């Protein structure tokens, strides 16, 4: 209500108005819309503002910091600073290093706190106060869905960061929202053939699943995919999100007759459940005459770091990894590594790619109008951003590209080589129909320019 600036503010304002420096003008309408441009936050003057909304506090702060590094790098490259990164390998050649449509790119940042409420508040302030025309970032599906909904209402584009739940482009999809990151269904589809190759058809799986929406969709996907290759599902146990010690969930696994443990956990949950499982000696046990195995469907570099040696030999899937050999990846790793001294995470790559994709779509649409941008992104095929040939599908705004199956390295040469790529699953294997039952129930609606 009151802060230390209030009184000074009144004086200043009074002086400014009294001196008659300028004629007051009044715009009426939606919170964010400038009536004359036809859409929210139309860039005025020589710059355009993007909003990067990442977790800066809470358990995902490191992931957020990495996303922010990528955003900063992308902005530099868009503005023609630095070595240009993936702009040179990107299949679209509209980006010239002169900003977006000649306007210098500026950005604002905010803290999602990995809470849907806080994330929306932060995104709102970027839209209402700073005039951001696009919001990107985030490190959980709850936040992504919440912010995507907000951007739809406000009439700005949302370029999702790290969000893996089917719902983001499934039942909660929105016309103004776009996801580059892969999803739970793709993880299952990519993992199943590899699991079959490594561990055979005759396996019995025990699932531990984080008890919230992402956990459920992840579990559903991986169960469907593994049952399709002949695996049995012995049990699926839901674990509270706030759980830190998983011993009481892991202890019964060995005696259940299962020979594979699937940990549908992310972040701190995954680090702890995996650490606990290894502590219980599951990996050294033999069940049904086979080696006991652990699978973590969604992997990230930071989680691998947190789990340390425990991840050795454990299979999972990733959206992208810096050890890929394509030109885009090489350019990006070089650029990022030179600036920051370590290779980028998959979260960083997806945020960098999303920023470039947005800028390119604006250039191609020749407008910042979110509806024109959305149209330019829908059904767009591109290459050179690190994942090979990629399609932004028009029906659900999901990117389709190759998915990586990775495994924890047994003897990493340094802290950056904690995971190794097992297989690059081609896009064909992970593609699904837009009306797939796991994604059914929502509608994109129509694009909202805000005004």
């Amino acid at each position: 209500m009151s802060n230390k600036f209030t009184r000074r503010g009144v004086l200043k304002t009074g002086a400014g108005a009294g001196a008659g420096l300028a004629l007051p003008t009044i715009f009426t309408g939606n919170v964010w819309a400038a009536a004359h441009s036809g859409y929210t936050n139309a860039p005025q003057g020589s710059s355009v503002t993007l909003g990067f909304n990442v977790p800066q506090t809470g358990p995902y702060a490191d992931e957020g910091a990495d996303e922010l590094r990528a955003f900063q790098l992308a902005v530099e490259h868009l503005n023609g600073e630095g070595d240009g990164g993936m702009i040179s390998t990107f299949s679209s050649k509209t980006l010239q290093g002169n900003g977006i449509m000649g306007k210098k790119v500026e950005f604002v940042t905010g803290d999602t706190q990995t809470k849907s409420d806080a994330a929306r508040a932060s995104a709102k302030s970027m839209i209402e106060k700073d005039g951001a025309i696009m919001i990107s970032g985030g490190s959980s599906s709850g936040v992504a869905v919440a912010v995507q909904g907000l951007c739809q209402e406000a009439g700005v584009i949302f370029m999702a960061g790290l969000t893996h739940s089917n719902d983001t482009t499934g039942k909660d999809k929105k016309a103004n929202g776009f996801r580059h990151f892969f999803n739970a269904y793709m993880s299952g589809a990519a993992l199943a053939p590899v699991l079959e190759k490594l561990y055979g058809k005759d396996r019995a799986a025990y699932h531990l699943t984080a008890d919230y929406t992402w956990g459920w969709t992840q579990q559903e996907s991986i169960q469907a995919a593994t049952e399709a290759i002949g695996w049995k599902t012995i049990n699926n146990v839901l674990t509270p999100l706030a759980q830190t010690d998983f011993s009481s969930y892991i202890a019964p696994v060995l005696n259940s007759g299962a020979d594979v443990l699937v940990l549908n956990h992310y972040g701190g949950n995954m680090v702890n459940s995996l650490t606990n499982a290894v502590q219980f000696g599951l990996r050294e046990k033999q069940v049904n005459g086979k080696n006991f195995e652990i699978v973590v469907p969604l992997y990230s570099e930071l989680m691998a770091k947190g789990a340390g040696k425990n991840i050795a030999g454990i299979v999972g899937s990733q959206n992208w990894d810096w050890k890929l050999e394509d030109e885009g990846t090489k350019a990006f790793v070089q650029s990022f590594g030179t600036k920051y001294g370590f290779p980028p995470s998959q979260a960083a790559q997806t945020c960098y790619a999303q920023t470039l994709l947005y800028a390119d779509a604006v250039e191609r649409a020749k407008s910042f109008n979110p509806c024109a941008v959305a149209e330019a992104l829908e059904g767009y095929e591109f290459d050179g951003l690190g994942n090979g040939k990629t399609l932004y599908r028009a029906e659900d705004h999901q990117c389709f590209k190759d998915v990586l199956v990775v495994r924890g390295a047994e003897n990493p040469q340094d802290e950056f080589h904690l995971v190794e790529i097992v297989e690059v699953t081609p896009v064909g294997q992970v593609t699904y129909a837009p009306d797939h039952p796991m994604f059914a129930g929502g509608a994109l609606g129509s694009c909202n320019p805000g005004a």
Partner: protein
Amino acid sequence: MLGLDKKDFTLLLVVAALVLLAPFILNPFPADSAMAQFNAGYPDLMQRFVIFGIFAIGFNILFGLTGYLSFGHAAFLGVGSYSAVWMFKLLSMNVIPAIILAVIVSGVFALVIGFVSLRRTGIYFSILTLAFAQMSFNLAYSVLTPITNGETGLQITLNDPRILGVSATAEGGIPVTNLFGLEMRGTEVLNIGPWAFQFNNGYYLCGVIMLIAFYISIRIFRSPFGLMLRAIKANKTRLNYTGLNTRPYALAAFVISGMYAGLAGGLLASMDPLAGAERMQWTASGEVVLMTILGGAGTLIGPVVGAGFIKYFENIFSKINESVLHGWFSFLPEGMENGVVWVTEHFVGPGWHLTLGLLFMLVVTFLPGGLVEGGQKLAGLFRRKSKSEAPDGAAQKHPAE
């Protein structure tokens, strides 16, 4: 005036003026200046100031007056938000029924929890309320997902079966919350030179409701009922030996403050129709405790000041990043600029929690009784200096002020 004595009425007028002029007061810096970062006069944050002000005013009726420290008040805020969003989904996008339902449901919820928790006092009471709230949060996040939509939060979708109103607008969008047609997100922008002042419908609705809530709280403070509540805090034994059972009074205070929380929750949902489960987490309950203590528990205006203080930090300091800092300090020589930026960086952006923690410690150590009492002391000091002959008026505190 309005049944208030002169001093209280003046306070109400000052608060009313601050609320009505907030779009100017909170926007002191021209939009194109470096200091614009500190402007807080945009609709979302202004709404939050007054809504969390309501929450803290209500909490203060319980904690400030009776001394019962509830660590579960966020549950009522959350329940209010969920009720309001369900009202939007099922009945109408008009905010009035949503707010009314939010207040009623949270009141009933508070009645049940209060009835059980008030069987104990002191820390035992605090832990009981904490336990109820954490149970609500954990269930809302997981098992109750069909009602609460769990992690993602309850949102309005294109296929809600709205009885009074349409599921989707003609353009295929989701309808927006309104007050008999007046859109809550509607904003008028007044441009004066480089300043842009935003007048938002939703903010003014919240502001008016906050003034009413504040007025009611003054009346409660000055009423026989308020006196009984303060007596509970002062000495339960004597009240018992005066033939009074303290529990109905404490329960009434609990329910009233629960309804205030529900009102705040309903308003949050009316401004932005989303109800996230983490609204009910113990940290959210802790936040309102901190707001009240920071501002000054038991004072009328303290909780509002505390709420504004914390929300300002959360929303403004967290957004200051390295490049903003470089912008501010670019006038310095480069080496010095980097040094200053490096130091400042720890306290803003990702470090905003650190600043908040330090401020908690400083305020409570050097301004016992919170910001308001600290302010009064400073004012007293100032007054004593200016007219050292005058009798010491500042020390004669108005009770509970």
